[in-house]
C-alpha cells in the first residue's frame, strides 16, 4: 500500500471539517486523493483484502487517468486485470483501460475492441452496458 499511497486515517467523530468537506456519511469511507487534495475515487464499506486492494489499484489508475498520465493509468488497469480479475473493481478497470488506450493513441478502435472484451469477460456488468455505444464505431 505504501508503495503508491500515503495512508491517512481520519476519525469520523473528531474531524467534522473533513467529514463535511468530503461529504462522508458512513464509515469506512475510503477516498483516493492526489497531492492537491483532489478526489479521484472512493468506496464505502468493509471489503475482503483482495477486493480492497483491487479498489486501491483502480483508484490509482483513475487518478493517473484524470491527471492525463495515460501510460501510467494503463499500467495500473492492466495490473488489476492480471492480478485481481475476479474482483468487483475489474470491469471498471477494463472499461477505463480501453478509454485510456484511446486517449493515448486517439484510435477509436481501442474503444470498440475493449467492448468485445467487456462483453466476453464481464457481460452482466454496468461497464459493459456503458461501453455498448462503442459498437457503433466503424471498422
Amino acid at each position, binding site marked *: *500500500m*505504501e508503495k503508491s*499511497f500515503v495512508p491517512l486515517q481520519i*476519525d469520523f467523530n473528531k474531524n467534522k471539517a*473533513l467529514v463535511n468537506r*468530503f461529504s462522508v456519511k458512513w464509515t469506512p469511507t475510503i477516498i483516493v*486523493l492526489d*497531492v492537491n*487534495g483532489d478526489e479521484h475515487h472512493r468506496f464505502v464499506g468493509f471489503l475482503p483484502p483482495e477486493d480492497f486492494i483491487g479498489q486501491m489499484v483502480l483508484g490509482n489508475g483513475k487518478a493517473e487517468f484524470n491527471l492525463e498520465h495515460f501510460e501510467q493509468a494503463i499500467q495500473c488497469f492492466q495490473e488489476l486485470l492480471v492480478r485481481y480479475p475476479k474482483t468487483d473493481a475489474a470491469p471498471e478497470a477494463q472499461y477505463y483501460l480501453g478509454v485510456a488506450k484511446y486517449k493515448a493513441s486517439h484510435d477509436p478502435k481501442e474503444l470498440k475492441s475493449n467492448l468485445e472484451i467487456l462483453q466476453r469477460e464481464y457481460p452482466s456488468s454496468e461497464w459493459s452496458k456503458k461501453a455498448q455505444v462503442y459498437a457503433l464505431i466503424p471498422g
Partner: protein
Amino acid sequence: MAKPKWEASLTTAKAKAKKEKKLILMDFYNKL
C-alpha cells in the same frame, strides 16, 4: 507485510505525497 504508518493530518499527508510522488489513501473510520 508491515503495518502501514497512518498519517493523521491531511496537510502532512499532502506534503509527504508531494515529496514522495504518491497519492493519498484517506480512510474515514469510526470506532463503534
